[in-house]
């Protein structure tokens, strides 16, 4: 009985590892993966991470500064936009395991050349 359980556990473990590997991953988050899934999945593995999860490492005000735009593009800053200020949660535009588009693109033909992993 015990060996069966161990075997089961091994198979199960392998499945989980495989499913994690099969997913999209961002190379620059490698160190986060090393710390385990729950580093980001703070609400359990079956739920989306909370909107505070990314903010453990990232700071919205800093991001807003990094993506700052000038002149008539000033309010197209995706991290500090005219419509949503600095309040748009990361996952509205970014996906760790799935490609996504900035929500601005629902209505606008903006160019965000540095945006990674865009869903075409």
């Amino acid at each position, binding site marked *: 009985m015990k060996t069966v359980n161990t075997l089961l556990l091994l198979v199960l473990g392998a499945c989980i590892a495989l499913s994690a590997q099969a997913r999209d991953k961002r190379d620059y988050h490698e160190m986060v993966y090393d710390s385990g899934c729950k580093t980001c999945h703070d609400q359990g593995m079956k739920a989306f991470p909370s909107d505070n999860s990314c903010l453990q490492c990232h700071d919205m005000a800093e991001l807003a500064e990094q993506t700052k735009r000038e002149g008539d593009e000033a309010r197209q800053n995706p991290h500090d936009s005219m419509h949503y200020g600095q309040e748009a949660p990361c996952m509205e535009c970014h996906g760790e395991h799935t490609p996504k588009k900035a*929500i601005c693109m629902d209505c606008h033909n903006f160019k965000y050349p540095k945006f990674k992993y865009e869903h075409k």
Partner: protein
Amino acid sequence: MQTRRSFLKLGAGAAAIGAFAPLTVSANSSDIKWDESHEIVIVGSGFAGLAAAVEAGKLGAKDIVVFEKLGVYGGNSTLNAGQACFANTDLQKQLGIEDSAELMVQDQLKSGRGYASEELLTHSAELGPYIYQLTKDCGCIYRDHIINTGGTSATRSHQVVERSGSGFIRPMLKTARSYGVKTKIRHKFEHLITAKDGTVLGIQVRRGYHFGHEESGEIINVKAEKGVLIATGGFGANVSFRQALDPNLGADVGCTNARGATGDGLIAMIAEGAMPVHLSFIQSGPWASPDEGGFGYGAGFSLYNFPHSVAIDRNTGQRFMNETADRKTRADLEVLRRDKEGNPNPALLIAPKHEAMKDPSMNNVLKYNVAWEFDSVDAIAKHFDLPLKALKKQIEDWNLYVKTGEDPQFGKRMNMSTGIYLTAPFIVQRLWPKVHYCQGGIQINTKSEVIAAKTGEKIPGLYAAGEVSGGVHGVSRLGGCSTPECMAFGVTAARSIMKA
């Protein structure tokens, strides 16, 4: 699974009613396990919801919560040109514009084609100057210039400097929070919770909801001590729902709405026996461009330029409508512009650059390939394959109308374009309507109370305001007339709830 579990949690006292059984929860209050309780529960963070939150805060409510389904606040209310028609404001007086609530209502009744509610329109128009001041008190900043929108007999569309609804939403959100209003994203309204006599006790909410992932998050029961305001907006983004009501509005028709405009609040209220009205009156925006998604920049460009520009059919090279007629008149005519095979052949809006450049929308449409500049009529005709002679004649004729102040072709009000001749260089944008606004919705009265279909009486504890309500505008709503109406009935709901 989570829905069923929390449904069962209500115990033996829970009894579902009617044909919509799985959607409704009816129970004795004491049988329900409440996860949260608030004085006022507001569903939706657009104009109606936030105006209600601000007004209730002003009236001294201590515990107000606003639930937003999406990850961002404002819904459709943040995606528009930021205009609001008010009659009889100090700005109109400064600019020498004579106007009145009665005149505004008359304009709206005409566009409503016999279906609008004079009582509800009058209530909204009379609150206009109050709403104008309330938004200014919130920190909204209006332009000094008032703009003309289609179907109006006086210039009354006040516009915030952002030229976007976000110029209302951001300051109102901030003001609401300053009154202690709790605002929560990713909280999707699921159902009303009612007592056996039909009184609304609270709502079920899916907390931690991610749009498009219908099973995400967890169900909680939220008690409303004084009342529930449903301010969830329209259903323009719900293709199967809108197409069932208007077969012409399938997935191939564009839409200006936020993703969340799926009609959840409307459907839940119908399930509770509320009276649906005018659901098939769905409006398309005649100022939209097929060269970008959603509302975009094109709408702002067209809105500014319609009065002094011409809309041209590409087959004939001629005008086909009064460019400032009401929205339905224009959208219905625009969608008829087709090539020989019947495929869409969007009309061209031709604007004079010397006037278009006075509004920032011109730079935006040019920069993002929503409109293009041409040096001559010949260049336009060549690029878009138009009959040159006819187009030249049309533009000459139009300039004569500008001079004489009369448009014998379509009867356009020409005092909006006095002295503004259509001369090169030109800015040209394509026009193709997009689903924009649902005139239909749930019936309300002048207290923002929701009316029951069975009795014609109010449903106790339940209020609705904004696009989710119906019957106000009738067949077609005038531009800039939803924003003030959403806010007026939001304010009204807050007043009613505080009195209840």
